[in-house]
């Protein structure tokens, strides 16, 4: 990650301050749950393997030991049962944080998610909110076998009543998860698996402030075109923006952080400045998040656009076997090719 952090900023300002130990995204997520559980006894973590093992990615490491098995519970292996039980727990005033282990393993829970979690507030005229966080490790790039690398965000985005967020930095992993747990609405919290081990100078001892859900952030300022992206594709776009400088292209990178609610304001302000936009994500393109984003940007920024809004997405194929996934995942070159197709010379 190339982003500045509170930690490094403080170190620069203080001069002599010791540089904090780098922390990983997995540690930041674990810290977010730990802090939330310590502050609020109604927060319960549950899922398959989250207790004794600490999660297959160790994101819940130590929580069962610190808070007991009633607060961090190893459940039977049944996703619909896990989420369905969480609904009942939320009805009785608890705030369950549910882990779905892997993206494609969440599908058995879709009926509970779509029919109850997303709709319960609406069905009961606000009497029964569902303060549930559904943590879903998602996306590819870690060599997982099939059913372990899906990008399922479009399914969640298409369901009214759900918030859908995904961090790209260690700091955001902490801040967004704290905000998700504090939210009175259900939040599908998509964790980019391949960024679990990304590091930052973020200090677990002085966690970043909790920001409300729904705000995109400009990760890199630029004037020529906007790369609109989120989650695992954010580092790809930042790298592409650095590489583009050699071509004379000054790219802006917007990290959405929240897919629902969608921050039209930040995105459109950026596109109006740059006049060009490429949406980048690893989910499939057809009917994917980029289709919605490109349409929104076109509707709102048509007269500012110098070129059509382009999409760089995964191919419209079932997630490929790991030995072929590098051809499927949008990389720096594919992003730069799209930028070139924006007919750069015409505008600058």
């Amino acid at each position, binding site marked *: 990650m190339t982003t500045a952090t509170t930690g490094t900023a403080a170190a620069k300002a203080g001069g002599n301050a010791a540089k904090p130990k780098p922390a990983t995204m997995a540690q930041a997520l674990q810290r977010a749950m730990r802090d939330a559980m310590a502050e609020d006894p109604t927060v*319960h973590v549950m899922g398959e393997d989250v207790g004794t093992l600490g999660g297959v990615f160790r994101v819940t490491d130590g929580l069962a030991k610190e808070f007991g098995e*009633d607060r961090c519970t190893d*459940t*039977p292996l*049944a996703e*619909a*049962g896990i*989420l*369905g*039980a*969480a*609904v*009942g*727990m*939320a*009805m*009785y*005033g*608890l705030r*369950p944080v549910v882990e779905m282990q892997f993206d494609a393993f969440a599908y*058995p829970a879709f*009926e*509970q998610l779509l*029919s*109850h979690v997303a*709709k*319960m*507030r*609406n*069905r*009961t*005229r*606000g*009497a*029964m*909110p569902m303060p549930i966080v559904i943590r879903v490790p998602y996306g590819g790039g870690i060599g997982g076998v099939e059913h372990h690398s899906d990008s399922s965000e479009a399914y969640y985005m298409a369901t*009214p*009543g759900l*918030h859908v967020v995904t961090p790209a930095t260690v700091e955001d992993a902490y801040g967004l998860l704290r905000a998700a747990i504090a*939210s*009175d*609405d259900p939040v599908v919290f998509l964790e980019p698996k391949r960024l679990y081990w990304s590091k930052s100078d973020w200090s677990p001892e002085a966690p970043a402030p909790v920001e409300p859900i*729904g705000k995109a952030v400009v990760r890199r300022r630029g004037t020529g075109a906007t790369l609109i992206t989120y989650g695992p594709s954010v580092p790809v776009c930042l790298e592409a923006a650095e590489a583009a400088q050699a071509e004379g292209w000054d790219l802006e990178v917007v990290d959405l952080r929240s897919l*629902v*609610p*969608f921050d*039209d*304001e930040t995105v459109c302000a950026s596109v109006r400045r740059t006049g060009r936009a490429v949406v980048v994500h690893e989910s499939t393109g057809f009917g994917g998040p980029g289709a919605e984003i490109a349409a929104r940007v076109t509707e709102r920024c048509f007269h500012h656009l110098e070129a059509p809004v382009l999409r760089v997405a995964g191919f419209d194929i079932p997630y490929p076997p790991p030995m072929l996934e590098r051809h499927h995942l949008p990389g720096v070159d594919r992003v730069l090719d799209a930028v070139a197709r924006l007919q750069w010379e015409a505008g600058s």
Partner: protein
Amino acid sequence: MDSLQQRSSTVQEPPGAVPAYRPTPPPAWQPRTDPAPLLPEAEPLRVLGTDAVADADPALLLRLYAELIRGRRYNTQATALTKQGRLAVYPSTTGQEACEIAAALALEERDWLFPSYRDTLAAVARGLDPVQALTLLRGDWHTGYDPHEHRIAPLCTPLATQLPHAVGLAHAARLKGDDVVALAMVGDGGTSEGDFHEALNFAAVWQAPVVFLVQNNGFAISVPLAKQTAAPSLAHKAVGYGMPGRLVDGNDAVAVHQVLTEAVARARRGGGPTLVEAVTYRIDAHTNADDATRYRAAGEVEAWRAHDPILLLERELTERGLLDEDGRRAAAEAAETMAAELRERMNADPVLDPMELFSHVYAEQTTQLREQAAQLRAELEAEGEA
């Protein structure tokens, strides 16, 4: 290689010389305790018409009778409202009133009920306003009541999905130290759903204070029980989860009340979940949209009419001198008053605010929903001006 050669040489020996393979249990294997206590009764438990009825509290019998009469009238009135177009649909429980009412009355006030879409009557027996209980079926809102007020979860339309909710709520209550029990109702068709399995499994593993009541009314819309399950009874399914199964005559209100009361008490004292199958029959069609003559013979329905829950109880009360013509008339008049009031209130057109469409999607409206709300408001204003 050595072991392969060794194996091939043993194969060449004449049969009989090789000791027969006898599987031994793996080291970690420990047989579970005798499942016999978990097995349900061989026949559905009956109380009415047997010597056991002598133990029944006369006040309870009379209360059940009054509620059954009221419940039957509610069913006929609501069915009539569908014919008048006042209800989009009504899944009748005529013939099943004993399950609905006796089960609801087995709960304490602090307990929770998790009804399916067919269990309006159980909700009303628990004290819910009869009109509020019908909003889902009238179509003016999905759930017409605050679930916390009477501790009744929203009437659940997807099959069996309310069962894991009951488990989660009961589990949460126990974690908080409250002695609350959840009663979850489901039909025979619902027992085929994955959520039924997952809920029972979770409940047993967590020893959650939940009672599952299957109202086996013979049909899942048109599909008979024989095409739904190969189990000896639906109550038998309990054994596989490690909880007791009980089989009860669902038309015997006293038996249902007794079995449910025992199961609720067991759950409350930390004994864990119970699966109860109440054997009953759906006298009416699935809903007004269904033609039951396509899948069942009239004779079958008539046989069940002879085993009507109201008849069974009325006969018992009359024989014991607890009910006379005056008592019958009083119960009928009370039911008629309820029906008249229901008719009158349901015949008033509900006043709906279209702007409420955007009120309960999120705790706070998103920018997108605020824009859409503005669009609808403008459309409504334009309609008003036209």
